[in-house]
C-alpha cells in the first residue's frame, strides 16, 4: 500500500494539535487586551479639535475654575459645554486678533456653534448625572485626571463599566470632602480609608450597584 501521508505529517499534526492550545489561549488573551486598550476605549488618546483649546493654559496657567465654563456641573446631569459667548467674555479683550481664535470669532459673528469633538462620550444606555457625583464628593480629577496638565484634552480613564464599578463598589476609596471637589491638586490629609469611611457616613453615600442605577 502506498503511503498517503509524508512522514513529516507526524510532526505537523503533533505541532498543530499541541500548538492549537497556545494559539487559542493567546488569541483570547490578545482579545481581552485589545478590548481594554486605547484603540477601543480612546483612553489616553488626544482628540483633534477644531480649535486648539488648552486646559493646561487656562486652568494651570490662568487659574480659571472648572465651573466658569462647565456651568451646569453642580445642578445637571451634563457638565455643560461653554457657548462661544463664554469664550468671548475674555477673548473680546485678549488675543483679539490671534489667528488661532479665528474660528471662535467666526462662530460669535455667525451664531453657529463650534463643533467640538466630544472626548467623554458615555453610551446612551448608561444614565449618568454629574450633579449627584459632585454632591457626594467625587472630585473632577478622580474621573477626568489632571486636566490642568492637558494641553489638548484626552480621556484619562477607560469609561468601561468595570471602571465605573470600581468606585460604585467601594466609594470610600475615592471620595473627598465636598469643598475640594474642584481642587486640581487635592491629596487626602489623612489615610484615605479613614477619611472615605467617614465621608461615606456623613454624605450618606450608598454603594449603588443595581443594574437599573445606570441602565434605566
Amino acid at each position, binding site marked *: *500500500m502506498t503511503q*498517503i501521508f509524508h512522514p513529516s505529517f507526524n510532526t505537523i499534526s503533533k505541532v498543530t494539535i499541541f500548538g492549537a492550545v497556545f494559539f487559542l489561549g493567546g488569541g483570547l488573551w490578545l482579545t481581552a487586551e485589545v478590548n481594554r486598550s486605547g484603540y477601543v476605549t480612546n483612553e489616553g488618546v488626544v482628540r483633534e479639535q477644531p480649535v486648539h483649546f488648552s486646559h493646561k493654559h487656562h486652568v494651570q496657567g490662568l487659574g480659571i475654575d472648572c465651573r466658569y465654563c462647565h456651568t451646569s456641573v453642580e445642578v445637571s446631569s451634563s457638565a455643560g459645554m461653554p457657548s462661544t459667548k463664554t469664550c468671548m467674555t475674555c477673548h473680546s479683550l485678549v488675543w483679539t486678533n490671534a489667528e488661532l481664535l479665528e474660528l471662535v470669532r467666526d462662530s460669535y459673528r455667525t451664531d453657529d456653534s463650534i463643533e467640538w469633538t466630544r472626548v467623554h462620550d458615555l453610551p446612551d444606555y448608561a444614565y449618568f448625572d454629574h450633579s449627584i457625583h459632585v454632591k457626594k464628593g467625587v472630585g473632577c480629577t478622580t474621573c477626568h485626571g489632571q486636566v490642568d496638565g492637558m494641553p489638548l484634552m484626552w480621556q484619562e480613564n477607560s469609561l468601561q463599566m*468595570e*471602571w465605573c*464599578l470600581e468606585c460604585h463598589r467601594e466609594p470610600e476609596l475615592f471620595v473627598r470632602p465636598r469643598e475640594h471637589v474642584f481642587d486640581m491638586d487635592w491629596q487626602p490629609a489623612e489615610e484615605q480609608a479613614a477619611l472615605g469611611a467617614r465621608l461615606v457616613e456623613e454624605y450618606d453615600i450608598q454603594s449603588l450597584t443595581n443594574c437599573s442605577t445606570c441602565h434605566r
Partner: protein
Amino acid sequence: MTDRAPTVDPGPAPGASPAGEEFIAPGHSLESVTDKISHLVLTRRTPRGWWIGFAISFLLAMLLVPSVGVLLAKGTGVWGLNVPVGWAFAIINFVWWIGIGHAGTLISAILLLLRQEWRTSINRFAEAMTLFAVTCAGLYPLLHMGRPWLFYWLLPYPNTMGTWPQFRSPLVWDVFAVTTYATVSALFWYVGLIPDFATLRDRAKSLPFKRVYGILALGWRGAARHWDRYETAYLLLAGLATPLVVSVHTVVSFDFAAGIVPGWHATIFPPYFVAGAIFAGFAMVLTLAIPLRQFYDLGDFITRRHLENMGKVLLATGLIVAYGYAMEFFFGWYSGSEYEHSMLSNRLSGPYRNYFFALMVCNVLAPQLLWIKRCRTHMGWLFLVAMFVNVGMWLERFVIVVVSLSRDFLPSSWDLYEPTKWDWGLYVGTIGLFLTLIFLFIRFLPVISIFEMRTLAPQSSEGNGDEADEAADREGGAS
C-alpha cells in the same frame, strides 16, 4: 490491522449466550460486516432515495435563512411571544431538541457501562442524532437573545463590564449543562469513530478520501497499544457522559421549577423531565432507525430484537411520564392553592385544552400499544407510535410553557399566545437542518460502528471457521 477486535474486558464469550444471536443475523463474518457497512459510505453511486431525501431536508433547512434573517433584522418582535407569554417556541423547541438528544447519550454511555450488547448497532447514529439535536437546540436560546453575537456574555470571563453571570439563575446553569453536553457528546462520538475512520481510510479508493479519513483517523494503526488506550478513553468518556444523561435535563427542568409560576413550581420536574427526555429520544431513534433499516437493508444488524428493546424502553419511560402527569394533577390539587387549582382547570378546559387532550393521546394512550408484542416488533406500528411520541413531547412542552404563562397571577395581564409564521419557519427550519445533517452523516460516515459490529460477528458465524473462533477468544463484552 484494523480487523483486530478490542482486547480488554474479558467477559463471557458472546457466542455462549444464545439470546445474543438475535442481535445480528446469522451468517456474518468479520469481513462481511465490514464490507456491508463501509460500502454504504464508500460506494460511488449515491442512491436516488438519498438525493430525494437530502433535497427535501435541505430545502426545509433553507427556511432558516429567511427565519433567522428577518429575526435578526427586526428583532424578536417578529415572533408571537410577548408579555405574559415571554417564553414560547424559543424554549419549547429548545427543550424538545435537547430531550431528543438524551437517548443517544443513554445508549452510548449507560448501556455501554451496563454491557448491553444490543446497543452496538444503534449507538453510532443515536450519538449522531444527539449531536445534531443539540445543535438545533442551541440555536433557540442564542436566537432568543436577539443579539446572538453577544452570546459570550453568558460565560463567566473577566469582562470589561466588571460583572459575572447571575450564578443563582438556572438559565446560567443551562449554559454550562448544554455546553458540557455538546462537548462530551461530540468527543464521545468522535473517539468512537476513530477506528472506523481508519477502516474507511484503508478501504477508500480515491486519494482525497483516503487523506480526509486518514486525518480524521489520527494515525490509527490498530496496534494493541492503540486499542488499550482507546478502550480506556472510551470508558472514561462513558463515565463522564453518564451523569449528563440525568443532569442536563434536570437543569433544563430547573428553568421552570425554580420559577413560581403555577404549573412550573413542582418538585417532580427533574425526574419527570429526564424520563420525558429519554422517552422523546428513543422515539426519535426509532423514527430514524426504521427508515434507515428499510432503505439500506440493514435488517441483519438492526434486528427486530433491537426494535423490540427500544419499544420496551419507550413503553417504560412513557409510563413514568404518564405518572408525572398524574402527579402534576395530584400535587396541584393537594396543594390547596387556588392558583394551582385554576391552572389545572385551565389545562383541562381553558383555551388550550385541545393541546392538552392531544398530548394525552400522544404520550399516554399511544404508547400503550407497545404492551402487545406484535406492535413492538412490527415496523409500521413502532414507527407510528414513535411519531405520536415525537408530537406528544412537543405538545407537553407547549402545555407546560404556554398554558402556565398565559394565565398567571394577574388576570389583568392574561393573554393568549399565537405563533407567527416566523416561529413556524424557524421550527421547521431546524427540523430540516437536523435531517440534512443526518443525511450527510449517512452518506459520509459509517452509520453503524463497524469495529463493534465485528465483535458480534463470531456469534453470527459461530463454528464457521478459525477466524471467528479466534476473534471470540480475544473478544469480551460488546465494548
